[in-house]
């Protein structure tokens, strides 16, 4: 079965979701992953968007986080203050998806600047809601291509907290969520060890450890239980290609 990197990442992200999870969704691959999970093993998944939409059932592929198709047919809409406080800060969100220009060895994310903050070499969009999602969702997942420049040992700017310098430092910070529980790339999946260091937990079919090491900016430790992911199934790919993104905008 043939599939591309976006499909591979989306399918693997979908499989991390559990039935009944309340997910704080972003557009693009996280949205596809959630809709895929809902149509396969997690029919009771509840999708929440930071625009304040709860229980969205988008009839078309949303192209922005505030697309009107998210609202029509949703179960509830609330203000931004409410979605961040009554839902996220209160602890009503099980899963958050995150992205960013850089992810480091302890799962910290930079989405703000490359270079000095006050005289930035590259000015990125900034946190948006990701600082709070990373801090307060019970578990977070990151979907990103696996490239050395995206995986530095240490990020220039911590927009969203992973485990900071150690699991213990995150715990001491007062952030309520458990932090990043998986980084899904096109090569495999990294997961935190007991120190909060992201280690190689799974390889996608056909990928070896050297390929991971070559594309990561630090010496990657390997899980004692390193596993291989199952390739995307025909049904998963069919749903993605025919139902969810038929014009191939994200996949």
């Amino acid at each position, binding site marked *: 079965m043939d599939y591309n990197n976006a499909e591979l990442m989306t399918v693997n992200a979908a499989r991390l979701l559990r039935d009944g999870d309340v997910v704080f969704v972003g*557009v693009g691959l996280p949205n596809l992953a959630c809709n895929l999970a809902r149509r396969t093993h997690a029919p009771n998944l509840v999708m929440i968007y*930071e*625009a*304040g*939409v709860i229980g969205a059932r988008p009839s078309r592929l949303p*192209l*922005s*986080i*505030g*697309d*009107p198709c*998210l*609202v*029509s047919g949703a179960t509830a*809409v*609330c*203000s*931004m*203050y409410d979605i*961040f*406080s009554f839902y*996220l*800060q209160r602890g009503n969100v099980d899963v958050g998806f995150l992205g960013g220009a850089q992810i480091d060895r302890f799962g910290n994310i930079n989405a*703000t600047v490359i270079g000095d*903050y*006050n*005289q*930035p*070499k*590259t*000015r990125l*969009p*900034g*946190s*948006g*809601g*990701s*600082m*709070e999602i*990373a*801090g*307060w969702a019970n578990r977070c997942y990151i979907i990103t291509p696996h490239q050395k420049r995206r995986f530095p040992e240490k990020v220039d*700017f*911590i*927009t*969203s*907290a992973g485990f*900071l310098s150690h699991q213990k430092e*995150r715990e001491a*910070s*007062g*952030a*309520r969520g458990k932090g990043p529980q998986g980084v899904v790339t096109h090569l495999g999946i990294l997961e935190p060890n007991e120190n909060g260091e992201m280690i190689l937990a799974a390889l996608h079919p056909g990928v070896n450890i050297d390929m991971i090491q070559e594309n990561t900016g630090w010496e990657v430790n390997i899980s004692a239980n390193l596993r291989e992911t199952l390739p995307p199934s025909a049904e998963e790919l069919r749903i993605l290609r025919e139902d969810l993104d038929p014009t191939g905008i994200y996949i």
Partner: protein
Amino acid sequence: MSKLHTLSEAIQKYVHDGDVIYAAGFTHMIPFAAAHEIIRQKKKNLTVARATPDLIYDMLTAAGSVKKVIFSYMGNPGVGSLRIMRNVIEQGEMEWEEYSHFGMISRLQAGATGLPFMPMNQTGAPSLEKANPNIKRITDPYTGAEVIVVPPLNPDVAIVHVQRCDKHGNSQIWGIVGEQKEAAFASRHVIITAEEIVEEDIIRSDPNRTVIPSIIVDAVCHVPFAAHPSYTQGYYDRDNLFYLAWDEISQSTEKIQNWLDEWVYGVKDRDEYWEKLGEETHNRLKVTPRMSSPIDYGDY
């Protein structure tokens, strides 16, 4: 007391050089028509605050109206970078003040409710707190733990686009309600642009739907299609093609200037802008109805 104004009058009366303005609406009902009028009236040195500056502040920046931006996510939503603002920041030509979304909205919440600060729980992320001295910590007197606080944001003017309001300014909105209410209550002046000006009876038939009350509104302007290229739920769709096109336009100073000349300076008002967009665009953005199930308030 009718507060009806033309948009041109309202901007003239309530937006001044050097003001802090908040054009509200998270992705939805972004008041582009008002921004274009601000550009036409050549307002200067504005501090523009918005969680997501979006194309609306990219345009204001391109036109030279902006001194400073206060924001939490500076991107072209669903497309990528906001090239013009990003560029002036990278060139050191614009001031900025940055929060997370919740930090930004908490500032509005404090401003809107008259509080001197809003508390937020810790997220563990240290860098922005270090970069922005407005973000402080205090001690929770009950547990001794530390809490993040942000100060109120009280803009000079909030501009809010709504689906329907009466001539007094009682405004009802549905779909994504982002931070419109908070922005309006936080600001010294409020300008409403509306798809429809309706009889007071329509508003009074569903008081729970009213988000902004007349008592805080200064000007009401009837401006259909004021949110294009964003959208108004139930009225027209988001013009995703334009969001993509802007990514192209905003790459060249010449193209930006041409676009401003043609679509802002070159039209008198939003009616002319909408006409100029043409039938094909009108049809592309049309939406078929999907009505709410009515409710009964009871005739007491």
